[in-house]
């Protein structure tokens, strides 16, 4: 296969970027999308004309959440429920032109080329995405039974890999799906109950201060989420938030 790439090149956070054309020849359909970039980068290094393309990636098995390419107008490319690293070239045709851009959001500034800074997510978790239990304080794991349905739902929310595709997909660059996944997971478990009010209030406040847009329920986040995190989590976040504002001593 031969592929025409248009890749966003940007030297660093301060400089302007632009799309640059590359032709990659002899692509195998069994290659992953990132492996195609490896091939291209090796070529760029060997030729010595252009610097290799910087992009984030690590586990390459769809779980670490580091890879983050915006491919032909969609985060993680054309397939449903898949990260960029799990996208394979058999999903494209010979001669295709593919536009590759970084996640774009004020809260995710570009570091270089396709790599962006997603530390805003870490700060949101640090503001409340946890259960305050010091090591050694825990009671026996089976002392609190949890209904299987709740445990399963909490798990489905907890499957979020923090890749930021939701923000990238959303026309408002909203991070509601990410925040809601964590709030949901902990709201569904009895262990998370004692801090449910402060958690949701603090996490929403932090989310707003990071410069993400507001949710307008387009559903793009969930449709593009590689872990298919459901929109019901956003509804639950809304419930949790208004319940905390209206029904608790906290604000």
């Amino acid at each position, binding site marked *: 296969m031969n592929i025409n790439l248009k890749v966003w090149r940007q030297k660093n956070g301060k400089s302007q970027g632009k799309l640059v054309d590359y032709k990659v020849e002899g692509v195998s359909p069994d290659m992953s999308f990132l492996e195609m970039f490896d091939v291209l980068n090796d070529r760029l290094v060997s030729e010595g004309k252009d610097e290799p393309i910087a992009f984030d990636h690590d586990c390459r098995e769809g779980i670490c959440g580091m890879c983050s390419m915006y491919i032909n*107008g969609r985060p993680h490319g054309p397939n449903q429920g898949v990260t960029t690293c799990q996208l394979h070239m058999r999903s494209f045709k010979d001669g295709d032109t593919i536009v590759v851009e970084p996640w774009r959001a004020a809260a995710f500034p570009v570091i270089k080329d396709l790599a962006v800074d997603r530390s805003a997510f870490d700060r949101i978790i640090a503001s409340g995405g946890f259960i305050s239990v010091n090591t050694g304080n825990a009671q026996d794991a089976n002392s609190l039974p949890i209904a299987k349905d709740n445990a399963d739902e909490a798990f489905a929310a907890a499957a979020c890999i923090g890749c930021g595709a939701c923000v990238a997909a959303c026309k408002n*660059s909203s991070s509601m799906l990410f925040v809601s996944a964590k709030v949901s997971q902990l709201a569904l478990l009895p262990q998370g109950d004692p801090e449910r009010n402060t958690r949701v209030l603090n996490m929403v406040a932090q989310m707003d201060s990071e410069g993400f847009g*507001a*949710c307008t329920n387009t*559903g793009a986040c969930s*449709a593009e989420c590689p872990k298919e995190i459901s929109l019901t989590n956003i509804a*639950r976040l*809304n419930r949790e938030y*208004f319940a905390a504002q209206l029904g608790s001593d906290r604000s």
Partner: protein
Amino acid sequence: MNWITKMFSSSLGQKLIMALTGLFLCSFLIIHMVGNLQLFKHDAGLAFNKYAVFMTTNPLIKTTSYLLYAAILFHAFKGIALVFQNKKARPVKYQAFDGKANSHWSSRNMGVLGTIILVFVVVHMSNFWWQYKFGHVPYTKYTVNVGDNSLSSIPIDVTNEDYMKGFTEKLVVRPLGQVDEIIVKDLYRSVELGFKELWLVALYIIAMAALSFHLYHGFKSAFQTLGLNHKKYNGAINFIGIGVFAILIPIGFAAMPLYFFIK
């Protein structure tokens, strides 16, 4: 900051305002629709005109209507502000953007759709509401036969200032034995005349299409914002949102100008 301002200034709180005002406006649409159906009655507009009087004089309705105007303004300007605010969250746009792959067109264009509706509301209100309240609306005298309810109507020459004297009321009913004589502000005639204008009819139809798409997303979106998303009830919410608000109501409203244009 106290908790109320804190809540309503958060991104979720602002959405809550949009949802609550939006649903309130939806409830008005139903009332407005039901009332306006009287335009289709073959009574030379009597029922419609009576309804218009009722809507503008009943104290409860009057109070509600001020709430409604406030809601319209709030919903519209908050919505526009949010659109600009949300745009700031992505200062550099994508070169390639495939929105249709993951979301419905209407959900991505609520601002545009809402603006069309706002323009429409302004035109609509200035055409009818403003005219009715402050402008020049003709009067009509209806003579209703008490026995068989048969009816005749005569427009009152509004240029005859003497005759008009004493008619500060919008509606006067004089029982005259065999017949009732009813003199009423004839909004119906304004409607009839107005909808002979092609551009106005076109604007109404475009606006109702916009309303349809706006509510297609807006209705169920409001429930999502309120946190009401549950597989047991989503079917009903979708059914009402699409069936009633995105299809029936816009079609009903659009039928009115068309009806008068063709009539």
